[in-house]
Each structure stands twice: as structure tokens, then as C-alpha cells.
């Protein structure tokens, strides 16, 4: 009776957690029901979008009205004749000669959705569009006519491609000529050399600057483990602690320490300014209102004597956070650039996992298979532990009579009995338990794999087999609506797919291998655990579930292999189980 009450209690508690979580989140973080599409659609191009929609894992616009508006805005904005095309291996887009803005960039190698024919990911979008995100280069100066956002620049060269720079120039007709030499590499790096030449007959003082502006409407979700938002390298490390909300609240945030790069990041994308060498810059994040934010890198004032020209070169990274590529850039001298990926505390483990996964992927060309192989490798390393455990279990049999004697003698004094057993283990030099280190070792591996799957651009939109087209996303199939046959999407807490069910079953099977806990509450807990975890894990990346399922299957395989090597242990296990069942029956009978 007692057991049943506990079981009931546990079930009720689990239910509360499952349903309560959703309800609680809705209560504490209410989301607007539906964005108001009519209003946003009616707004003239250039209006900022209506209430920010809920961010998604990958980022990008979600409100259909904003998407439609973005499309129309882009069409008008990009039609302008005052644009120079960008045509590089990884980047495509254009430069707006009005204001010298790089405000139109798409990533050639990354698709918007998992569909192969979906459009390329758009990273930069002109000012005023719903997805605005752009970079601008300019100068501040007093008593000098500096170019502004309306200045129309003259371009030489183009389209911008590797080895084919573009020169923008503007003469202010009062003795100064401003030029911006743009070049691009094979990946995601654009260099802007800003020069001001002075022939006015007197010295002038100017401050070159570079900015990246963007809306937070397209930001990906920022979570405890993965930061999306303002980012930069200040002082001696990358700052992941500043959120859009913080900037909006403060108006302006100037992080402490010398800035080596500054910008904005999503889970997969980064736009960042890298000031020249170790030149000091004033770096800050500003809120411009309406959910638009700006990262500034402003150089110290330069005095340009008459007849001289002085330059500052800023690099602009705009692209995907590919770990290897960022590492290469870091090697060229951009401090901590690879850490633009939010590896977190377990970076030491994540980087090798990431490397190994990529090697395996190159071998088999399927990330799902690569994950399975990785699991096998991890288990091979752990195998000696299990083997050793079985060996000591076999040795245990030899001391079984002594154990029985102790158990009899200290029947009524459990702590003493425990102590005596420990002493016996010690004197006989055996111990059937593995200790906590093997478990503690596996936790960082598991967490590391989770982060690698979530963070790594290599795994974005990578298929496994059958219905799993994106290992970095949750299982798309839902059992409750019969895999899409019924026309509804189950609420998130019930959205379990076949992978989660496989996980539950395989975990249940591995739990059965363990000797049942002596404590009845704990024993009940073990019984329900797999099914709770089935729900808890369902919304996680499919790749993670594949890892766990494989891991469970390998545990089962390992167990049956080791039993086959120690047949007497198998006999023992069966006997133990029968004993326990008999015991349980007897107790149940005695109670009724």
C-alpha cells in the first residue's frame, strides 16, 4: 500500500512538472498571442516592425507580415542603381553608395531552412527593413565636413571579389578627400581601409569609426548555455554576459578593457568589427530604440597635417561561425576569435568532440552515423571499467558465504552490517561497485556533445536517415498526431517523437540490468525514470537522442557479452532475481 502511494505521488508530481512548466512559463513570461499582421503590413517601407515576435532557435523573422514586408522592402532597396555588387565565394550582396554601407549580404553556403532549394541565409539587410542589419564606415570631426548617411560616394572597380577591391571616394569640396578601400577574402572577412587626405592648408582632427547596426527582431534565442546578442573581446576574454535587454535598459554600454573585436552574434552567425592591430578604440553598444542596436568602434582622434593622408583599417566579419575558420582567423591575430562560439566551461571537452565528430563525418559523410561512431569510441574507452566490474563480481561469488554470515550476524544493525561488509571487501580485495568517477566522466562528455550539436554550424541542417533531416533540431515526427496524419501540432510537452520513445524503451531496458534499489521509494523512481526522461529529452536535438539511444544499446550489448564470458554470474543474477520476486510476493501476501 505504501509503495502504491509513493508511486501515485511520483506520477502526480511528474504530471505537475510537465503541465506546470508550460503554464508557469506562460505565466511568468507571457508571449503576445499573435502578432498583429495588418498593422505591420500597412506600415510604409522603412517603418520598424510591430511588437518583436518570439525568437526562434535559429533566428530570423518569424512574423509573416514582417517577412512579407521585408521581401517588398528588399526589392525596392536593392533596385537602386547606386549599389556595387559583392560577389565572393561565400558572400553575395551589395554595397550601398549612399552612406557607404554594407547592408546586403547573403551566405552562399547556408540555406534558410532544411530544404535544399530554400533561399540563402540573409545576414545583412538595409536600414529600415524589418530585418535590418548592416555595417557602416565613417568619420567624426569638428570643423570638418565629414561624410554622413546621405553622402553619395563614387565607386571604382567592382563587383567586390577576392583580389578585386573596390574603392569608394568622396570629396567634401573643402580640402579633404575621404576614401574607403574595400577588399574581401575567400570566406567571410571584408577589410575597410579608411583614409582621409587633407589639402586644406591647415591640420584637421578626425576620428574614424566603424559600426554594425542590427535589429534584435531577427536574433536567435539566447539561453543559459548559449548566448545570442552583443558580443566582443574586451580586456582578456570574450564577453557573453551582455544581452539586448541590458543595452536597451542602459542606453549605452561600454565594456571594460581594450576591445579587440565587437559585434553581435546569433547561435550560428556573427557580425563583428575588428579594429586595426592593437589600436585603442572606444567600443560600445548602443540602443537606438525600436529594438535596433549598434556596436561602435571609434578610433582615437587623428591629426592630419596639411598635405598628408592617414588611414585606419577595420575588418568586418560577417558570416557563419565555423569553428575551424574562426580558428584560422584567430591564428592571423584576432584575439579569441574562435571563442565567438559560446563553448562555455566545457570547451576543453567540446573542442575535441567537435574535432572528432568532424573527422568521423569526413569518413562516413553522415553526421548521424558519425555520432553513433563517436558513441562507440567513448564506450570502447569505458569498456575496461565494466570488464573490471564483472571480474570483481565474479570474485564476489567466492566470498559469498562470508557475506551471508555477516548479513546474518548483524541483521538488526544495518550501519554495522554495512561497515563489516566494507571491511570484508577490503580484506578480500574486491568491490563490485565502480565508484563515481566513471559517471562523473560521462557527464561532461554528454553535456559537451549537447553543446557541440547545438552550436556547431557543421551540424546545422545535416540529415541522418529516414525522417530525420536535421540532427541539430528536435525529432520532427510526433506520435500524438500519427506522424502528421492528424491536422494538429501537439502541445510542446507532449510532442514526443519516435526517437524519444526509443530512448525511453532502451533506458528502461538498461535500468533493468541494475540490481533494484533496496529503498522502495528509490526502486519506484527507477521504474518511472525512463518514462520521465522520455518526455524531458524529447525536445532536445535529435543527434543527442541518437547518442543516448546508441549508448543504451551498447550498454545492453556489453552486458550480454560480459555475461557470456562469466556464465556463472548470469546464473547468479537469474537466481537473485527469482529470490527477490519470491520475497516481494511473500511480503505482499503478508500485508494483505
Amino acid at each position, binding site marked *: 500500500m505504501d509503495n502504491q502511494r509513493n508511486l501515485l505521488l511520483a506520477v502526480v508530481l511528474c504530471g505537475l512538472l510537465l503541465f506546470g512548466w508550460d503554464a508557469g512559463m506562460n505565466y511568468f513570461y507571457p508571449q503576445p498571442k499573435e502578432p498583429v499582421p495588418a498593422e505591420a503590413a500597412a506600415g510604409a517601407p522603412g517603418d520598424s516592425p510591430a511588437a518583436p515576435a518570439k525568437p526562434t532557435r535559429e533566428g530570423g523573422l518569424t512574423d509573416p507580415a514582417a517577412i512579407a514586408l521585408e521581401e517588398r522592402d528588399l526589392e525596392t532597396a536593392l533596385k537602386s542603381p547606386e549599389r556595387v555588387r559583392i560577389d565572393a565565394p561565400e558572400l553575395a550582396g551589395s554595397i550601398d553608395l549612399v552612406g557607404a554601407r554594407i547592408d546586403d549580404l547573403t551566405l552562399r553556403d547556408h540555406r534558410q531552412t532544411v530544404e535544399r532549394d530554400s533561399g540563402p541565409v540573409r545576414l545583412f539587410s538595409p536600414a529600415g527593413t524589418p530585418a535590418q542589419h548592416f555595417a557602416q564606415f565613417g568619420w567624426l570631426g569638428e570643423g570638418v565636413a565629414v561624410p554622413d548617411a546621405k553622402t553619395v560616394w563614387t565607386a571604382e572597380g567592382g563587383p567586390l571579389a577576392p583580389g578585386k577591391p573596390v574603392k569608394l571616394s568622396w570629396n567634401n569640396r573643402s580640402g579633404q578627400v575621404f576614401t574607403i578601400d574595400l577588399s574581401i577574402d575567400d570566406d567571410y572577412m571584408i577589410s575597410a581601409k579608411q583614409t582621409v587626405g587633407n589639402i586644406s592648408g591647415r591640420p584637421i582632427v578626425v576620428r574614424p569609426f566603424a559600426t554594425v547596426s542590427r535589429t534584435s527582431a531577427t536574433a536567435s534565442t539566447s539561453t543559459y548555455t548559449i548566448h545570442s546578442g552583443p558580443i566582443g573581446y574586451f580586456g582578456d576574454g570574450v564577453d557573453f554576459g551582455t544581452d539586448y535587454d541590458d543595452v536597451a535598459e542602459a542606453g549605452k554600454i561600454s565594456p571594460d578593457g581594450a576591445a579587440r573585436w565587437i559585434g553581435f552574434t546569433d547561435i550560428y552567425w556573427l557580425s563583428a568589427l575588428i579594429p586595426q592591430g592593437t589600436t585603442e578604440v572606444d567600443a560600445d553598444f548602443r540602443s537606438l530604440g525600436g529594438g535596433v542596436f549598434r556596436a561602435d568602434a571609434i578610433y582615437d582622434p587623428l591629426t592630419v597635417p596639411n598635405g598628408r593622408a592617414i588611414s585606419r583599417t577595420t575588418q568586418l566579419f560577417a558570416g557563419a561561425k565555423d569553428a575551424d575558420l574562426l580558428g584560422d582567423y584567430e591564428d592571423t591575430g584576432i584575439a579569441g576569435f574562435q571563442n565567438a562560439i559560446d563553448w562555455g566551461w566545457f570547451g576543453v571537452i567540446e573542442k575535441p568532440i567537435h574535432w572528432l565528430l568532424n573527422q568521423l563525418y569526413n569518413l562516413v559523410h553522415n553526421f548521424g552515423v558519425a555520432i553513433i561512431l563517436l558513441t562507440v569510441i567513448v564506450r570502447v574507452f569505458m569498456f575496461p*571499467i565494466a570488464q*573490471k*566490474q564483472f571480474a*570483481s563480481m565474479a570474485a564476489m561469488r567466492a566470498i559469498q558465504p562470508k557475506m551471508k554470515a555477516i548479513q546474518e550476524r548483524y541483521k538488526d544493525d544495518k550501519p554495522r552490517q*554495512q*561497515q563489516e561488509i*566494507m*571491511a570484508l*571487501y*577490503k580484506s578480500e580485495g574486491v*568491490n563490485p*561497485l*565502480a*565508484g*563515481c*568517477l*566513471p*559517471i*562523473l566522466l560521462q*557527464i561532461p562528455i554528454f553535456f559537451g556533445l549537447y553543446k557541440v550539436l547545438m552550436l556547431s554550424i557543421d551540424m546545422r541542417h545535416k540529415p541522418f536517415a529516414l525522417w530525420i533531416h536535421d540532427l541539430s533540431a528536435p525529432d520532427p515526427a510526433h506520435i500524438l498526431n500519427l506522424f502528421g496524419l492528424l491536422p494538429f501540432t501537439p502541445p510542446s510537452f507532449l510532442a514526443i517523437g519516435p526517437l524519444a520513445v526509443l530512448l525511453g524503451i532502451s533506458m528502461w531496458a538498461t535500468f533493468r540490468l*541494475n*540490481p533494484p*534499489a533496496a529503498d522502495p521509494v*528509490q526502486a519506484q*523512481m*527507477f521504474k518511472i*525514470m525512463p518514462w520521465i526522461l522520455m518526455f524531458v529529452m524529447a525536445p532536445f536535438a535529435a543527434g543527442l537522442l541518437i547518442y543516448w539511444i546508441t549508448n543504451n544499446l551498447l550498454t545492453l550489448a556489453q552486458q550480454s557479452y560480459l555475461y557470456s564470458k562469466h556464465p556463472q554470474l548470469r546464473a547468479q543474477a537469474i537466481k537473485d532475481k527469482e529470490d527477490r520476486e519470491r520475497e516481494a510476493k511473500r511480503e505482499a501476501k503478508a500485508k494483505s
Partner: protein
Amino acid sequence: MKRVLILVARAWQVGPSRVLPPTCRYAPSCSEYAIEALGKHGAIKGGWMAFKRIMRCHPWGGHGYDPVP
């Protein structure tokens, strides 16, 4: 610092340790040992002792009664 580390050990006891199969080779368990060591010897020495204890808590390590010195 000491408090934080003790909290970590407590969190382990009431969280993962409850639901994982029993694995302790030692008495007291690693988490009990850690809490006691931290209380007795402070964050640095106690923490180091707890770390060393966890490092020998594996199938080739020792076992049995192993109290905090």
C-alpha cells in the same frame, strides 16, 4: 567559495545521486567526504582532498572505510 562547493556536493546528493544506481566504493561516500572535508579544512585544502578522493573512486582505486583525516 566553501559554501558554493558544499552546495555543489549537496546538489549532487539530492539530484543525480538519488536517481543513479548505487556506486559508492567508499564509506563515507564521496559527497559526504567532500562536505566534511570542506567544513574541516576550508575551500582550498578541503576541495583538493575531495578532488583526490573522487579521483580514486574508480574500479582500480581503493575502497572501504576512508574518513576525512
